[in-house]
């Protein structure tokens, strides 16, 4: 798939995210929009998977550790052909498979139920370890947030993946620098972040998380790395693509109104208005 095609899909996914959240009346737009490009790159370029055979044993695994941003994944899975796009509009409603945070039992196209921050990376390590133990060559991808790196279990998992020589594990960190209550550096700074992951013996890369050529290059480099797991720190913009949401912590966990949603969609489709 070409870069312009990926960019077009990412736009569609962002539009779907806004539509879903408007219909749901709640949810997390900021982080869903900041991780959209990496999710797009994974599902539409990097990962080996079969939408017509979701339980294919050799599929690459994807764990969204930052489970609150699952609208971006629902939109990607629908676009990829796993299920009808209309169903995404049932997000967060009674009897829907589209739980507010992913539930693999109700919705088997996600690999793991997540939503308690700090835990998903351990599950991804387990999937990668199972591949090693079972002679499988699938790869495991995991998207984590910046804020959840404040949880100790992230560093337990970080210690274990190099120990188990998991060169089949690639983690992308959605470093949008904002968490629910404010700026990450103010709440509990992660810096020096790359040094931390390096000190834990990870192969580390740092990229612009909205630059598709950079994302694809990094994913390829991670796949070729043969000496343990790779961490791709993706510098991102919270609320990316919607001017009034960008870099605003207020949009971490608040759904746009119908009017705000229309404005957001117009901006995503046509590009943000010039700064006033």
């Amino acid at each position: 798939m070409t870069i312009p095609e990926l960019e077009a899909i990412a736009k569609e996914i962002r539009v779907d995210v806004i539509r879903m959240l408007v219909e749901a009346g709640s949810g997390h737009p900021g982080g869903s929009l900041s991780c959209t490009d990496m999710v797009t790159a994974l599902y539409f370029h990097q990962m080996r998977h079969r939408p017509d055979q979701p339980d294919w044993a050799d599929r690459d695994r994807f764990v969204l550790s930052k489970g609150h941003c699952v609208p971006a994944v629902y939109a990607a899975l629908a676009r990829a052909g796993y299920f009808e796009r209309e169903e995404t509009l049932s997000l967060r409603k009674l009897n829907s498979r589209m739980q507010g945070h992913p539930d693999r039992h109700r919705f088997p196209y996600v690999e793991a139920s997540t939503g308690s921050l700090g835990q998903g990376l351990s599950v991804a390590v387990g999937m990668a370890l199972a591949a090693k133990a079972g002679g499988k060559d699938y790869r495991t991808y995991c998207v984590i947030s910046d804020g959840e790196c404040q949880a100790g279990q992230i560093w337990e998992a970080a210690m274990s993946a190099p120990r188990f020589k998991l060169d089949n594990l690639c983690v992308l960190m959605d470093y949008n620098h904002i968490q629910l209550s404010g700026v990450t550096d103010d709440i509990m700074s992660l810096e020096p972040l790359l040094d931390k992951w390096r000190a834990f013996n990870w192969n580390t890369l740092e990229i612009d998380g909205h630059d598709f050529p950079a994302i694809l290059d990094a994913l390829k480099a991670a796949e070729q790395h043969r000496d343990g797991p790779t961490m791709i720190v993706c510098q991102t913009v919270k609320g990316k693509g919607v001017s009034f949401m960008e870099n605003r912590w207020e949009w971490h966990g608040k759904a746009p109104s119908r009017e705000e949603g229309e404005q957001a969609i117009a901006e995503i489709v046509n590009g943000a208005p010039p700064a006033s």
Partner: protein
Amino acid sequence: MSAIATRVTFGETVTRLADTNPDIVVLDADLRKSTMTDEFSRKHPERFFDVGIAEGNMVGVGAGMALAGKIPFICSFACFVVGRFEQIRMAVAYNRANVKIVGTHAGIGIGEDGYSQMATEDMGLMRTLPNMAVVQPADGIETRGAVEYIAQHDGPVFLRLTRQKVADVNGEGYEFRFGKAVVLREGADVSLVGTGAVMENVLKAADLLAAQGISAQVANIHTIKPIDTGFIESVASSHGRIVTVEDHGISGGLGSAVAEAVAELGRGRVKRVGVTEFAESGDTEGLYGKYGLSAEHISAAAVGLMD
């Protein structure tokens, strides 16, 4: 068999099962010599993973391996692994991950290490999770059967094991039947319903009661969840008096499970014998005497129901 710590039988059994089941893997958190997974680690090194002293990560890694088709036994002291309740709730239970949580060193019977290593809340916590089975074998032969069963049970299980040796209560030829109470002795006046390491004292209590002219049934409940409701309802009807006994806090474990079933039936009385305080270092017998789990305590509880 003779008196044996149930953790020892677990270690032997899981190692043997792995010879023929390539999906079995064992995770441990730097306690292999205590959880008795050491033998597994030597016999199946490619399927043994020590995560270090990081039980939360062990729970998540085990869940991930289960979701990828493995059958992980994740092992630590019961208090440490169940202490990661929220990870178990999310990564194991909610994911419907086929993880076998093995908690050794259950209860105050572990002795000298003291309260920090004594799991007395674990069954209560695990019982609250909708799909978690809770199994506590009482002796070696029952442990062997329980581990064999658990390996092929489809879904998460919490297996609770002892540090200390426990006497045989089942005879040779015993067959483990998941979810079914085991009547060890018949009796008409009162039913003594126990689980795990206390069964020897429960049998002794029945002797003490017999000397007083009270005929006590003794039943061993190895499956605390799903509890054998049919058995409890039948005993509540036929005996009317039930004493529950466990080396676990008095809230949340076997006693609670039995009391819930009896309350919903609306017939019969229950007296719970269990741990009500933070225990301390000491020998098992001394601790059971001080904290209310001796044969004398159990028989006294039964006598209290006889009015």
